[in-house]
């Protein structure tokens, strides 16, 4: 097997456990779009054009609550600002790629793909074809997200609400942090970000995510700086 195929399949393999919440979430999203009255075409179009579950939900919820287009666009954009941080991390490993690769891989840079591929990049920084890992993980998520959105649009909420499967979303992100549980500096960042997200949850335009990131990163930056001095 060539190194490219191997990395592509590794990306698929690494991201597959994270599909557990993506499948019900995609179906629920498709069903919500229909329920809120957006119709099948508009609902599906967001999955291909925006391709970000959190931003799509925010966008639809605000519009259906009577918010203006401007508020809906701004809020869903503020929610996606976290990708700037993901991009900054993976940019360290993708800088040698052609423009076409960068343009295409950026489209696939979702939370889950970022989570598994940045781990892979860290461990395989000398691998010439490491970007195939992100391609494999990203394409897997893309295909599953498209399919499950369509299933939700066509079949409605076939996922019983009593199962509480939306709880698998925080569980998955928690599981992605287990490697950091034994590192005190990471625990500080995790705790600060979590606490900030609760405190600023009501902040305007859904800005609590990016606010929490900035606050926790800034404090750990100060702590690191202070430590160097002593």
């Amino acid at each position: 097997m060539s190194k490219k195929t191997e990395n592509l399949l590794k990306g698929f393999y690494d991201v597959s456990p994270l599909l557990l919440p993506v499948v019900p979430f995609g179906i629920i999203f498709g069903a919500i779009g229909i329920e809120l009255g957006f119709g099948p075409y508009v609902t599906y179009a967001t999955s291909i054009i925006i391709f970000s579950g959190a931003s799509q939900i925010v966008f639809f919820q605000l519009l259906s609550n009577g918010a203006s287009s401007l508020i809906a666009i701004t809020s869903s954009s503020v929610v996606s600002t976290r990708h700037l941080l993901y991009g900054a991390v993976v940019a360290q490993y993708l800088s040698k790629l052609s423009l076409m690769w960068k343009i295409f891989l950026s489209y696939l840079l979702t939370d889950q793909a970022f989570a598994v591929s940045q781990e892979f990049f860290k461990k395989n920084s000398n691998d010439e074809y490491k970007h195939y890992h992100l391609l494999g993980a990203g394409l897997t998520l893309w295909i599953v997200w498209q399919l499950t959105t369509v299933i939700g649009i066509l079949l409605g909420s076939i996922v019983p609400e009593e199962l509480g499967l939306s709880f698998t979303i925080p569980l998955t992100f928690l599981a992605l942090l287990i490697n950091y549980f034994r590192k005190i500096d990471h625990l500080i960042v995790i705790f600060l970000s979590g606490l900030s997200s609760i405190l600023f949850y009501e902040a305007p335009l859904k800005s609590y995510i990016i606010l929490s990131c900035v606050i926790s990163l800034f404090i750990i930056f100060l702590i690191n700086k202070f430590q160097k001095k002593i």
Partner: protein
Amino acid sequence: MTIWISIVIAGIINYLTRLGSILLIKPERLSESTKKILGYVPSAVFPAIIFPAVFFNETNTIVQINDPKIIGFFVAIVIGYISKNIILTIIAGLISYWIVIFLF
């Protein structure tokens, strides 16, 4: 019609947040301390998705201390800490959550 324009604008901005850093950041220009801080990005972003989803209800009120989500959350933390296994962590959290919901 406006809905389509809105979706396209939201889509373009969303895409630019993904492309922006990849396109503009030159790794050789990043200082060591910046690279170190970037190493904390998962630990800085994911809790902001996790905590509100666990500690708030659909009505945006703080949950009770004995809420099934809190119990699932702490079981997942313990199992994650011990096992260091992603699937086991998710399954343990979900099953303990279901046990509380369906048996109590």
